[in-house]
């Protein structure tokens, strides 16, 4: 009925004739969902405690909708438009499918993490804690120390390398090699970075060596390529006119780089470094291998195992002790903390990029 109305009302306009209004598809969607509901209800098993699975109803309903709208559109608008509409529905639902795990994950982390997200969690360590109580202060501390040490190693190396690539090495063999191998480094699996750091310190200091510095070395292997890539991109964005103006005034090249090029690109470089720190702070596997885990505070990066927040979450989950609920609650609180740290770093990085970006466009 609605189809006839639609065609009749718009028959005068030759461009919109035989096209369906969007409300038709809204009605179709509702109809498809109701149909799916009916099918589920009619085909229900004869059990007392039968419950309607709303997720399944929605999924089947969307499948019905795809078929229905294709049939209707094909009948009224022709095959080509029907395919176009179907593609649009499928592509849009792909996006919704991807949002489902993200939303589910964020909701679970927030709801389950909130129960132990308290003062104790950020002031106590796990020393002598068997069941409930305790906290992750030692893990937060370890994460911060190791991430800072990794930055101290990787930022100078990464930044200087990108300066070499952009300012000195153009067209040289060495810079081509570096570009290629930085690509290779971005593909190193994180656990292999951990094995490398472990092997390195085992050869130097003997078997079984695990310490914070080793963890930082592993993180640096992951961090350096990210820093090189992002800073290189930012340095290339600096307009050549600025460099030429400085050269024309007789400024030596190194001073030009230090006083002109770097300040122009500093916002972008900071953003890249912060994103790199956020990335390595969430790494579990390399620290599991290289830094080990501990239940106590450790301020000394050169000795003994050092706990990190991701490993705290991992061990709380894997070895749930006598009171599994307490361990899981701590794991979720740790996950919440971790996500918050990473999100703050991410948002801060984007904010810096937006606020301090140089006005290059005239």
């Amino acid at each position: 009925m609605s189809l006839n109305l639609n065609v009749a009302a718009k028959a005068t306009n030759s461009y919109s004739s035989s096209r369906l209004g969007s409300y038709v598809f809204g009605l179709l969607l509702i109809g498809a969902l109701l149909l799916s509901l009916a099918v589920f209800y009619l085909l229900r098993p004869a059990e007392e405690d039968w419950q309607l699975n709303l997720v399944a109803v929605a999924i089947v309903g969307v499948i019905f909708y795809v078929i229905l709208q294709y049939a209707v559109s094909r009948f009224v608008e022709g095959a080509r438009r029907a395919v176009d509409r179907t593609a649009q529905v499928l592509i849009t639902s792909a996006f919704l499918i991807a949002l489902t795990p993200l939303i589910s994950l964020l909701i679970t982390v927030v709801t389950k993490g909130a129960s132990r997200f308290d003062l104790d969690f950020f002031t106590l360590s796990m020393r002598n804690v068997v069941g409930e109580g305790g906290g992750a202060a030692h893990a937060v501390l370890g994460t911060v120390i190791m991430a800072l040490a990794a930055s101290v190693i990787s930022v100078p190396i990464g930044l200087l390398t990108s300066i070499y690539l952009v300012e000195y090495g153009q067209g040289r063999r060495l810079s081509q090699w570096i570009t290629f191998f930085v690509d290779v480094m971005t593909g190193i699996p994180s656990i292999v970075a951990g094995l490398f750091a472990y092997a390195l310190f085992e050869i130097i200091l003997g078997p079984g060596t695990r310490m914070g510095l080793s963890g930082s070395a592993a993180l640096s292997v992951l961090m350096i390529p990210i820093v090189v890539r992002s800073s290189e991109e930012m340095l290339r964005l600096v307009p050549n006119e600025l460099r030429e103006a400085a050269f024309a005034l007789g400024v030596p090249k190194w001073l030009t780089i230090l006083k002109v090029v770097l300040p122009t690109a500093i916002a972008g470089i900071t953003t890249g470094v912060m994103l790199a720190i956020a990335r390595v702070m969430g790494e579990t596997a390399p620290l599991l291998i290289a830094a080990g885990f501990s239940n106590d505070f450790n301020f000394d990066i050169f000795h003994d195992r050092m706990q990190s927040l991701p490993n705290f979450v991992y061990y709380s989950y894997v070895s749930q002790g006598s009171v599994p609920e307490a361990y899981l609650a701590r794991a979720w609180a740790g996950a919440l903390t971790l996500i918050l740290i990473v999100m703050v770093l991410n948002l801060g990085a984007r904010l810096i990029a937006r606020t301090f970006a140089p006005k290059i466009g005239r």
Partner: protein
Amino acid sequence: MNSSDLPSVPKVVVTKVRQRPGDRVFSGLSRLSGSLILALLAGVFGFLFLEGLPALTADPAEISLLERSSENPNFWAYVFPLVYGTLWAAFLALLFAFPVAIGIALFISHYAPRRIAEFLGYVIDLLAAVPSVVYGLWGGTVLAPAIQPLYVSLHENLSFIPFFEGPPSGTGRTILTAAIVLAVMVLPIITAISREVFLQTPVLYEEAALALGATRWEMIRTVVLPVARGGIISSAMLGLGRAFGETMAVAMVLSATGVISVNLISSVNPSTIAANIALSFPEASGLNVNVLIASGLILFAITLVVNSIARWIVDRSKEFSGAN
């Protein structure tokens, strides 16, 4: 080129720029750190090789990890099921992630309203920012129990297919669950790269297709996808490389026994190299450590090959694409 033909023009005297000490120090430093990266990578290979070698040369009977694996202890017999598991899990993950990721990339680049497209891109990047251990925790405690009933019904209705042979796992911690978690993790990588390639499609081509009367989907199928083909393939391969190396999600979700099977829903699952290292390393000592390091070297080699092929495709398609 032509200057040699004109002898009458006086030769340009090239004065050598005076090298200030600051210049020399600075360029030396930057070259040094560049070389350091090369040395570092060589070190990764070298140290892993040095530490992995004993696993191959030592008597397999002395290594407890290998003894457990089969009646004929041997490094390759130990590592082969792990390689299989790594490839299998990554392949499954890619199977789920690839169509969805391409859909998202198209949605953001060609379907979503311009104003919110950038924001939607951030949302997908958010998926990439979530640490892997959190995915593992979510997969093990939320996804696995939620999806377990599905495995039971898959087994009841489709058990004639080898994938659903069962018996269904009681916890839901199967290779299929792990692959779904992996799929969520590689999704943002594939999306980010293919979105970028889609946006590089020359607008003139798109407008030409639309002007010839193509619908939006026909325009995408005939213009956007062919131009982006190289980028799409390489994005899939980079996603594959990420899935190979992903450790925690698999280690925390999968209950692995190290078998070779295509059964997706049973509680007997193949393990992956990375997850096996993470699970065995903390307790390992002596030659077992060397075995694990050697398996890590194999993982490195696999990812290296896949990533290099991906980069090669990107570079090649850059030359031929209509974008330039």
